[in-house]
């Protein structure tokens, strides 16, 4: 008599169990990854001070080697600590950030992770309370004297510093093919103004040479071209003013920059939307065009192709930006509530040291965040960049997440996407003003 009911009850339970499969097997590490993970992605370290979990997206070539150099420097000082290399592959951290955000939201805080200074640090990690201040560390290690003020400001909220930056890339670079220019009787000096560039570009175009290589599949490369042009036209003070609302995006200077940007687009290669940024650099190396505006991660492409500084290729600040240094930097914070805060603190101490930065940056292709690194360890280009870093005005990049919140970044990229096709300056300006107001920092 009960047989059927029992059978029935069991069936209902089985149905319920089948439907809610996932509940039956909650997995401990939500984003740790399931199958064989070639690049790490381990679960959070257990309680106890024996480990240090370092989360980053440095998985390829020079980056991985540079990260290893940091690990080696740390291990030399703290040999008893096991370093857990938690990397997540994917261009520019696009995948890693999602994994990180989920872990943080779920309370599974890594000891330390890779972060860009500026809005990425402040908006995504400081404000929600995911990181702890390290201001005392700066004081005790004497970093306040060797790390430029402008960079420290990008990592400071309400007087507290929240990050140690280990390497700095320059965003406003302008590379050129020396041979191609020499063939056309052109020589570039120490600086290049916008007018000079336009004159040279006209000359090249008349000679049948593509002046500017752009690879904007994914749009950020041309958005970066615009932000560099913007910097070059209105200067660093006005540029900084964009991010607190004191400069509006429809000010005459900004509109002038937009006109200039539109003019520059006339000089670009026709297949720009089909190329990625590195394909554009390759095109320059092959003589397909004369100039390419790109941050100095492009330097790695030249080196990989076996070219030498100032022989086959040369560089200068993006037209008009001489005297400014657009910062695209990497650093690490201390996770708030992580398993091994002491080890993380030691990690930051190592990162900020002269020796570690001198080991890391030549491999990474960036320069030290400190101004006192040994020049001899770096090549011709990097010495030039280090001079600029020590003396020029330091400004944040919006395309790389430092200058403004994520939703403005999206609006910025979207507005650039439209402008590249219709070159409508007024609409571009209005779109940026609206995006800034919507994002909360525009007037």
């Amino acid at each position, binding site marked *: *008599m009960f047989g059927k009911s029992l059978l029935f009850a069991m069936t209902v339970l089985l149905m319920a169990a089948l439907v809610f499969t996932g509940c039956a097997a909650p997995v401990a590490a939500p984003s740790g990854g399931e199958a064989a993970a070639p690049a790490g992605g381990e679960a959070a370290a257990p309680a106890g001070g024996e480990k240090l979990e370092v989360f980053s997206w440095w998985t390829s070539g020079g980056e991985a080697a540079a990260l290893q150099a940091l690990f080696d420097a740390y291990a030399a000082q703290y040999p008893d600590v096991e370093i857990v290399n938690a990397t997540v592959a994917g261009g520019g951290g696009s995948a890693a950030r999602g994994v990180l955000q989920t872990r943080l939201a779920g309370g599974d805080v890594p000891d330390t992770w890779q972060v860009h200074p500026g809005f990425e640090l402040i908006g995504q990690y400081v404000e929600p309370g995911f990181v702890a201040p390290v201001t005392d560390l700066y004081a005790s290690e004497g970093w306040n004297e060797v790390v430029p003020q402008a960079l420290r400001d990008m990592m400071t909220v309400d007087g507290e510093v929240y990050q140690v930056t280990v390497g700095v890339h320059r965003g406003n670079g302008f590379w050129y093919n020396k041979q191609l220019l020499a063939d056309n009787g052109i020589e570039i000096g120490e600086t290049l103004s916008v007018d000079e560039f336009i004159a040279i570009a006209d000359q090249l175009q008349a000679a049948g040479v593509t002046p500017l290589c752009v690879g904007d599949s994914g749009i950020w490369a041309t958005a970066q071209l615009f932000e560099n042009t913007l910097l070059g036209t209105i200067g660093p003070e006005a540029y900084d003013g964009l991010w607190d609302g004191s400069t509006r995006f429809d000010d005459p200077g900004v509109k002038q920059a937009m006109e200039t940007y539109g003019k520059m687009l006339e000089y670009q290669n026709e297949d720009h939307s089909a190329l990625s940024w590195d394909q554009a650099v390759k095109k320059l190396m092959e003589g397909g065009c004369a100039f390419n505006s790109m941050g100095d991660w492009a330097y790695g492409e030249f080196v990989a192709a076996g070219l030498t500084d100032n022989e086959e290729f040369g560089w200068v600040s993006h037209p008009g930006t001489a005297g400014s240094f657009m910062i695209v930097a990497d650093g690490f914070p201390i996770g708030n509530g992580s398993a091994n805060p002491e080890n993380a603190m030691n990690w930051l101490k190592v990162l900020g040291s002269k020796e570690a930065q001198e080991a890391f940056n030549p491999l990474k292709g960036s320069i030290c965040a400190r101004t006192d690194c040994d020049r001899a360890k770096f090549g011709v280009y990097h010495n030039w960049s280090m001079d600029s870093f020590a003396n020029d005005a330091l400004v944040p990049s919006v395309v790389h997440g430092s200058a403004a919140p994520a939703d403005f970044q999206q609006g910025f990229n979207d507005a650039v996407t*439209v402008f*590249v096709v*219709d070159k409508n300056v007024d609409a571009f300006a209005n779109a940026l003003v609206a995006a800034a107001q919507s994002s909360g920092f525009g007037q």
Partner: protein
Amino acid sequence: MTVSTDSAALHARPRDRRRWHLSEQTQTVLLLLPSILALTVFIYVFISFTFWVSLSNWRTLKPDLTLREPLFATYVEMFNMVRWQADLRNTFVFTVFFIAFAVTLGLTLAILLDRHLAGHNVFRNVFLFPYALSFVVTGVVWRWIFNPETGINLLFEVLGINYLLAQAGMEPLKPGWITDPTVVAQVNGILATVLPGADAWQVKWGIPLAMIPVAIAATWQLSGFVMALYIGGMATISDEVREAARIDGASEFQVYRKVIIPMLRPVTISVVVILLHVSLKIFDLVYTMAGVGPGFATDVPAIFVFEQMFKATRYNLGSAAAIIMLVLVALVIVPYLASTLREDT
């Protein structure tokens, strides 16, 4: 179907009444309950939540479910966005081309196969094969094929088409395909007569050429599916009907045109409805093949939702776009489901 009443009749046997057991209706409902509950939550509750978010102020990583004032401001903001308007235009253009290509090609292939010539089974498998592939695979390959520097353009060179055109004094055929930002057949001028200022709109209402290669790739993937449906449909048309038409003097061609295709109307309706709901939702193919395109020429609402939600962290805007996508799909599907519901009962 009157299964229930038959069961009820069978119920009334003395043996059953002596046992305690849940009525079969209760059993049915209880067994269905987990699925019903799961889907109620995972579909209807979730949609309601998304709708709430679309009305809220949530635009950063920190959840913020307070309602935005005025209530539908996010929707107004969205419809004023150049990108969203371009998305709607692109979806419309894509849908028209995709359905036209796929139905025509699918029907043609089905008719060709209907001749049952030697080896037609092999051909059927070849045509249906792309349906087994992922949209991602399709996107990756067709991106290459439609690259303006090579791909099909190279074929034009090799096949001598450009040579012939040059002989005729015409421009070589080298379309930009997915990198082409051109919008042809712009109607902004016409719209300006009704809506002043339409001339100066940033969004050009016309046919973005870059959308056509995407429609071609989607056709390649799904015309086999359409063909299969038509084959199934034609299998239900008896030979007598065709014979009757032939006896009346119709040629083969006329048999198809006058008799078979009209009889396939229900299949055509099903096909159009299914293709419509695919085209309104399309994401992976466009994302992997063309991205958002120059000047948003190939952007679609699904990509818009994805970028606003997961890159820009503008959860309210992304949710609003998702709700609009749902509304568009519902406009097509609900009448369809309602009509089949009426047919069943």
